[in-house]
């Protein structure tokens, strides 16, 4: 059974149908990449899934439950974590506090200070930020802020982690570490990845979904998508 399904999901902004009747299914444990030209509706689509914006019509089912009407914070508690495309860490709070916020909410074992600390440090270790725990997040380098953003998503212990253009603005060396990190994450979670960097997509994705003009244009394995004529046309504008 799929972890996430959408049926006839649509969202219009004025006359523009940003997401148009999308039927989508995601199997547990998958790394799914979502690609498409700018303005194809990728970010709107994942915003609908995470609950940041409400759909105009259609239905979203997560793990067998209809979550279409639920507010974002409830969806987060059910295991859908969203990391922002534009880095939106809490710039004035330390990296420690940034991660402590999701950690303290997911802790089930009561109120011990030690548990929060252990959870935060484990997450910071995993993303390689442990030695910067007490720096204000706004003073971290851009790459480290992206990592912190992922760390906050990770600390939510999500079943579905949505990464919106996570490698944007990262140096090549940072990207290699990032691919390793996402592989790690995918051992325990399903990953939905919006990404422009094609080598990253081809390295990571089990399957790829291509969006164009608010609709799903194609879906398949990386190899199949690479060969797909319609995809090439959407990206390169080749005349038929």
């Amino acid at each position, binding site marked *: 059974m799929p972890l996430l399904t959408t049926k006839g999901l649509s969202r219009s902004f004025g006359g523009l149908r940003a997401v148009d009747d999308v039927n989508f299914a995601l199997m547990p444990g998958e790394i799914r990449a979502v690609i498409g030209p700018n303005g194809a509706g990728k970010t709107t689509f994942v915003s609908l899934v995470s609950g940041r914006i409400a759909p105009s019509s259609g239905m979203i089912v997560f793990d067998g439950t209809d979550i279409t009407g639920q507010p974002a914070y409830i969806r987060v508690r059910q295991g859908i974590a969203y990391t*922002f495309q534009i880095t939106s860490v*809490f710039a004035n709070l330390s990296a420690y*506090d940034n991660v402590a916020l*999701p950690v303290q*909410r997911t802790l089930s074992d009561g109120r011990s200070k030690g548990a929060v600390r252990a959870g935060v440090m484990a997450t910071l270790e995993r993303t390689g930020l442990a030695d910067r725990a*007490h720096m204000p997040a706004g003073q971290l380098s851009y790459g480290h802020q992206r990592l912190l953003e992922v760390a906050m998503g990770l600390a939510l212990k999500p079943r579905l982690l949505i990464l919106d253009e996570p490698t944007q603005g990262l140096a090549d060396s940072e990207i290699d570490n990032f691919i390793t990190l996402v592989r790690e994450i995918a051992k325990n979670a399903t990953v939905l990845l919006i990404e422009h960097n094609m080598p990253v997509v081809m390295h990571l994705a089990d399957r790829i979904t291509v969006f164009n003009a608010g609709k799903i244009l194609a879906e398949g394995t990386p190899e199949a998508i690479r060969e797909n004529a319609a995809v090439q046309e959407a990206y390169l504008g080749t005349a038929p």
Partner: protein
Amino acid sequence: MSEASPAKAYALHLGVIALLFVLSLLLPEYYHGLLARIMVLAVFAMGYNMLFGYVGLLSLGHAMFFAAGLYGAGLAIIQFDWSVPLAFLGGIACGAVLAMVIGLLALRTTGVAFMIVTMMFAQVFYLLILYFATWTGGDQGMVVPQPARVLSLGATSLELTNPTVRYMTALGLFSIVLLVTLAIVRSRYGRVLVAIRENEERTKMLGYDTFSNKLAAVVISGTICAASGAAYALLFGYVGSSFASVQYSILPLLWVLLGGAATTLGPLIGTLFMYYVIDVTSGYTSAYLLIVGIALILLVLFFPKGILGSIRQRWLEWLP
């Protein structure tokens, strides 16, 4: 903010409380009354700071919470002959209930709309006090009679009109509220409040119900302000409608800005500073408000984070 240096922070706050205790032994009588008043009003400012400093919600209506405590306690004694402790608790309860109702309505808005809505509610509250003049004394206010301001503890009875008793009661309330706010801002809940101030949208996406958290903050803030108002009625014996006017919504904002928003000791420093500037300058000139205004402008220009906020930024990063 995080887990750093809890011992230092608690030592500092206990030190401030001890200092205020020692001052009562050293200072002449005149200052006892003044400092007691400042401590009670600093509690008002601390309540305001809870919401403005830590959650970033600028209310222009907090006079209604202070007045709810003031009138709740005052009316309970004058009209219903309640005992001092019961009247105090009654005043606090009035503030808590009012804060809950106002919070549920006003938190549907943010930013400028929140300022206007809270201000409007406070004006309604003020006008209601004037309208029900037969009960509230209208713009004359009411005096809580001296014989009623006695706290009976078994065989001994403490007269709240006695300067020492009054000072110690004010200090007791101030200390409790100071330590409670310190505990709150250092707690996990305090971390969530600051996160809401910094970026509410992001906080939601970490799974927090920000509306409920903000509502709880409004209730805590309103309850603390009501405690200040109730104590004011009992300690100083005057319940007046001017305390519900817009001026008393703006004063706590000024005190907090002066002392440093989102610092636990800032409200005390700000209230103290403002009172002494007025006290000193009014001795020299009748245009003392002009000097107060200039002092405020200079502070905002050169210390936009307030006195303690600037100290924290430059020297003492561990200040809570």
